[in-house]
């Protein structure tokens, strides 16, 4: 049966405000949770944070008091949704464990989006970016074993492999080269717009998280690695946000945000294995339907436009968290040495790239290289979790001694 959130019966905004008891959710158990349940929690936290930040920015671009009131109300319930979703994370987990889960999200979410993106230019943007977060997963996993003495496979399980991606060291590009061309709002498929919103939100949350928690560590290498990777996440937000057609009005973008939340809660509800968390997704879906309809009313009222014309007639194929091992290995084999020049992709180390690298690295090895070097020194090799054979690129295979 086709599901169209614009037609469904949602909860009116006023009725969405929850009390303390309803907000006081029980966190999941970090040692028995399904890794993809944790990924869904992290994803939806990023999506809710985006809805809040977007709404605040919208409110700063209008003087209409009535509109600001409507935004304030929906933003308040979005805030409660964020508090519920992110409070599913357990206090037992360390910052680094959550970080590793963030990179698992970036790896498997971006892979799925790349595989399902109909537009080749947009797909290339996701394929390009995913190899970088895949490398972050490897760097943080080495740090984790070094300072917390536990293996990352305890967190990601064998759903996601851990091995070098495009080395973080060469991910530092000149900011000009991080700006892509935007999709065309008239021509782009609705699903392309949703993908762009989802990945941008996830990357923005990752950036904010690393930039805030990095200094909580005492170990110099940990502090430095967070600093470095948080800078790459800045590049990722720039890269993905520039895919957006910025000519869409604020209200049009609000509508897309709400629709995307419906789409994602619907997707996650369908696949959730944890019954308690499934109920959260169900409740939030019902809320988002109400929020979408409120946004649709605003669009009719202020712009005299029909929201149905901007949205798909039925919800697209559900977005899935699932292993992407072969997909990633194919990308590793073919796209590791790519970089960007202007809005396109090249293999050469062009002048602007080289200059940027020289300026930033200042003749030293960056933290992302040193973390692996120190790990090798201490443990006799780097940390990896490879289930499907050695690294697809010969130069990135582990030394025989390290595997022993």
């Amino acid at each position, binding site marked *: 049966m086709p599901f169209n959130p614009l037609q469904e019966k949602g909860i009116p905004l006023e009725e969405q405000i929850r009390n303390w008891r309803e907000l006081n959710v029980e966190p999941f158990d970090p*040692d028995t949770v399904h890794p993809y349940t944790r990924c869904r929690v992290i994803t939806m936290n990023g999506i809710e944070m985006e809805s809040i930040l977007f709404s605040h920015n919208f409110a700063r671009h209008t003087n209409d008091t009535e509109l600001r009131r409507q935004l304030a109300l929906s933003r308040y319930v979005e805030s409660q949704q964020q508090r519920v979703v992110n409070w599913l994370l357990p206090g037992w987990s360390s910052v680094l464990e959550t970080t590793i889960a963030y990179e698992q999200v970036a790896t498997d979410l971006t892979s799925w989006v790349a595989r399902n993106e109909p537009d080749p230019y947009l797909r290339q943007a996701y394929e390009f970016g995913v190899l970088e977060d895949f490398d972050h997963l490897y760097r943080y996993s080495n740090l984790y074993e070094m300072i917390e*003495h536990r293996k990352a496979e305890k967190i990601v399980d064998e759903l996601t492999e851990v091995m070098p991606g495009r080395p973080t060291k060469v991910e530092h590009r000149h900011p000009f080269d991080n700006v892509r061309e935007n999709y065309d709002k008239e021509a782009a498929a609705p699903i392309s717009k949703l993908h762009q919103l989802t990945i941008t939100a996830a990357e923005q949350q990752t950036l904010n998280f690393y930039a805030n928690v990095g200094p909580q560590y005492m*170990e*110099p*290498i940990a502090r430095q690695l967070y600093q470095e990777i948080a800078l790459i996440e800045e590049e990722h937000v720039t890269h993905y946000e520039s895919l957006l057609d910025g000519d869409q009005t604020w209200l049009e973008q609000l509508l897309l945000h709400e629709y995307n939340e419906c789409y994602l809660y619907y997707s996650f509800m369908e696949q959730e294995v944890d019954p308690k968390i499934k109920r959260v997704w169900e409740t939030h879906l019902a809320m988002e339907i109400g929020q979408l309809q409120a946004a649709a009313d605003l669009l009719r009222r202020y712009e005299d436009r029909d929201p149905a014309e901007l949205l798909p007639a039925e919800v697209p194929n559900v977005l899935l968290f699932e292993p992407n091992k072969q997909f990633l290995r194919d990308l590793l084999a073919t796209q590791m040495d790519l970089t960007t020049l202007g809005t396109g992709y090249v293999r050469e180390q062009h002048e602007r790239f080289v200059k940027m690298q020289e300026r930033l690295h200042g003749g030293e090895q960056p933290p992302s290289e040193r973390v692996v070097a120190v790990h090798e*020194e*201490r443990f006799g090799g780097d940390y990896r979790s490879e289930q499907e054979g050695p690294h697809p690129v010969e130069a990135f295979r582990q030394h025989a001694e390290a595997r022993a």
Partner: protein
Amino acid sequence: MTATAKRTMPYGVMPAADVVDLLLQQHGRIRDLMTEVMGGSGDQRRAAFRQLVRLLSVHEAAEEEVVHPVARRHAAAGDSIVADRLQEEHDAKELLEQLDGMDPDAPDFLPLFLRLRDAVITHAVSEQRYEFNNLRHKASPAELAGMRLLVQAAEKVAPTHPHAGVESATANIVIGTPTAIIDRARDAIRAARERLPRSGG
């Protein structure tokens, strides 16, 4: 093993593996053994639980003898922080002893075990946040190294990675109850302390 090599880094020093590294490793292992006990049944659960009893007893004994006294000196409000940790260890030890006398496949084992797990992991995370962080910051490298030796001495009392086949009834008799293991670990720590050139704690 390059654990003692000190690596100078451009923006600071990556310290050599110290007593905190060892304790963190034990915390990780305790956590994983608990997941094994929860997930397994029969002999598998029994074996995991035996390992857990040994490791947890040795670990908590070492913390009481070696870590908490030093943390008390170094942490702000060290007395009250350590008092909280000691209370938690005391409560956990009671649960552990109760469980030790039970059949791991009995219906009331798992609910009680889940209480132990909750108490122990929460306790370990509190140690990491309120004690270990301070310890690393304020204790001297020599003090940390001495403490590491003492914790290692305790660890030898009850090896937690038995080779296949060694796990037998005799091993259990030799090792005994949590209280017996704790006593032996304490003795080992005290003996090792005598051998240290200068007291490590």
